[in-house]
């Protein structure tokens, strides 16, 4: 504190404020270094953005707004449109979120509220471990385990048993490789992030809030529903956003399962494409300058989509937090 009394025998050096100026050489070096790192991050971000946009410029100038709305993708005839990839990126991620968020919240509630204490640590560790599995391993597991199950069990069940084939969303042949497969694998991959964050914030809900509900005659479930989850909702939302961010950029496993087709289909059984996948698939063998530029443009769009989604999410968290206070 600035007003703290200094020891009497040691007169304070003139103009010595603890954060600005003065101090030993070590302090100065340390301060310079940390400042440099802090500045480096936004500079790096700006630099990457600039590089990507510069490289994408030829394609963006050639196709303009049409790059975002066209489904044509023909490197031979130099036609490029990213609409299916934008659609696929957003739909697979949002679908993954719809699948993963309730499940992750359920896992988190179980771990924080119901799990016997001796089981909590090991079980939490196992769930967290899901995040440590490499993406390509998820992809392999998906190809050899998930796809057959989807093709032979889940898709027929959805289409025929539940009769959802009449809706456009579950129609068409069930190949396996599909938007649904990508969404399911993404859901599994982001589940540990959402559940780890949710678990922590649920466990941090003050005992006084829990007791407030119980003392009013709430059952345990009602306490969780009325006191614990609402109190933790900002943090839970934060976890969901973390998961969404992961899903949007995820490349390898999705590439192996989504079917990689430049088409927008309402059916979740149909193959699709994502921005990350098309870059991974085609960059190494891009046939011409414009092709490379179009892939860079996909990268730029992905960057923008991620930033926009994160921006919306931040705003959501902020407004929920504010509503809770004010």
């Amino acid at each position, binding site marked *: 504190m600035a007003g703290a009394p200094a020891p009497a025998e040691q007169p304070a050096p003139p103009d010595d404020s603890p954060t600005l100026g003065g101090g030993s050489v070590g302090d100065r070096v340390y301060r310079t270094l940390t400042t440099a790192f802090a500045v480096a991050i936004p500079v790096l971000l700006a630099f990457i953005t600039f590089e990507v946009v510069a490289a994408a410029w030829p394609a963006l100038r050639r196709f303009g707004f049409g790059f975002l709305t066209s489904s044509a993708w023909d490197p031979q005839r130099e036609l490029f449109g990213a609409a299916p990839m934008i659609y696929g990126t957003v739909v697979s991620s949002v679908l993954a979120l719809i699948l993963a968020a309730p499940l992750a919240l359920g896992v988190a509630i179980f771990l924080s509220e119901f799990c016997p204490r001796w089981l909590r640590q090991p079980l939490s560790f196992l769930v967290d471990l899901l995040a440590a599995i490499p993406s390509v391993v998820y992809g392999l597991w998906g190809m050899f385990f998930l796809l057959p199950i989807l093709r032979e069990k889940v898709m027929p069940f959805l289409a025929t048993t539940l009769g959802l084939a009449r809706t456009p969303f579950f129609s068409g042949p069930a190949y396996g490789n599909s938007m649904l497969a990508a969404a399911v694998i993404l859901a599994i991959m982001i589940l540990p992030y959402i559940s780890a964050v949710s678990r922590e914030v649920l466990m941090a809900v*003050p005992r*006084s*809030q*829990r*007791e*407030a*509900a*119980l*003392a*009013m*005659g*709430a*059952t345990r479930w*009602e306490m969780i529903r*009325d*006191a614990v989850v*609402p*109190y933790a909702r900002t943090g839970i939302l934060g976890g969901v956003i973390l998961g969404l961010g992961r899903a949007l950029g995820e490349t390898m496993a999705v590439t192996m399962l989504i079917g990689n087709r430049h088409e927008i289909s309402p059916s979740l059984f149909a193959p699709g494409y994502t921005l990350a996948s098309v870059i991974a698939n085609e960059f190494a063998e891009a046939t011409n300058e414009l092709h490379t530029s179009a892939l860079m443009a996909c990268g730029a769009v992905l960057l923008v989509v991620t930033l926009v989604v994160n921006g919306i999410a931040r705003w959501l968290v902020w407004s929920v937090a504010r*509503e*809770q*206070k*004010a």
Partner: protein
Amino acid sequence: MTATRPDRATPTGEAREVPGLVESRGFNFWYGPKQALKEISLTIRPRSVTALIGPSGCGKSTFLRSLNRLNDIIPETRHTGSIRVGGEDIYAPRVDVVNLRQRVGMVFQRWNPFPRSIFDNVAYGPRLNGRPSRADLDAIVESALRRTALWDEVKDRLRQSALSLSGGQQQRLCIARALANRPEVLLLDEPCSALDPIATQKIEELLFQLKSELTIVIVTHNLQQAARVSDETAFFFLGEVIEHDVTARIFTSPKVGRTEDYITGRFG
């Protein structure tokens, strides 16, 4: 004062179905191996204020939380003996704890409104226990807020967050929330220890009004407060009730030396 007024139901027999009558008989309580309450036998008269006083760690909160079975949620606790509320043995096997906690409301040291609107906080209990009509709910909320002298302060901003209120208002809101359940007993665990004198005075006035309708048990470290608000006082020491009597007598002529030591500030 009216402290010596006899109960409507004098000790005639066993289970006396007097609403708001609290009777503890030979009640012991353990946290794991540690015994926190020893042979507590107390009778708390309906429609009166009973103050629990004593040094920290002597089991006052534990006893209070035994009266609405809030200690049930703490693992590895056990008890022996019995507690009756309104004649019902609250630790009997088939007792509905939810119903008990509606009958025995509680207010905590640290006010703990939910991070929702003022209205929703007070409406919480009634909504939990049924589906009151909008009109009924409005009436219940208004009446609870009036009884805690909050109505005039908040009637124009019922939709605002409860957290926008001052500390004293939040504590009165918590009392209103408890009252909305129409409890027969209200437990308060050091409700004023974090409040300024003016907010404290408001709550004390409130208790004075409320005791015509329900039984109030208040834990307090403030002896003046105990003397001001309570009809009877029980002195807790090391998990035991050392002395229980009409407040005036406890403060003027305690029978036990340790009570006198505590009252006169010789320890505690």
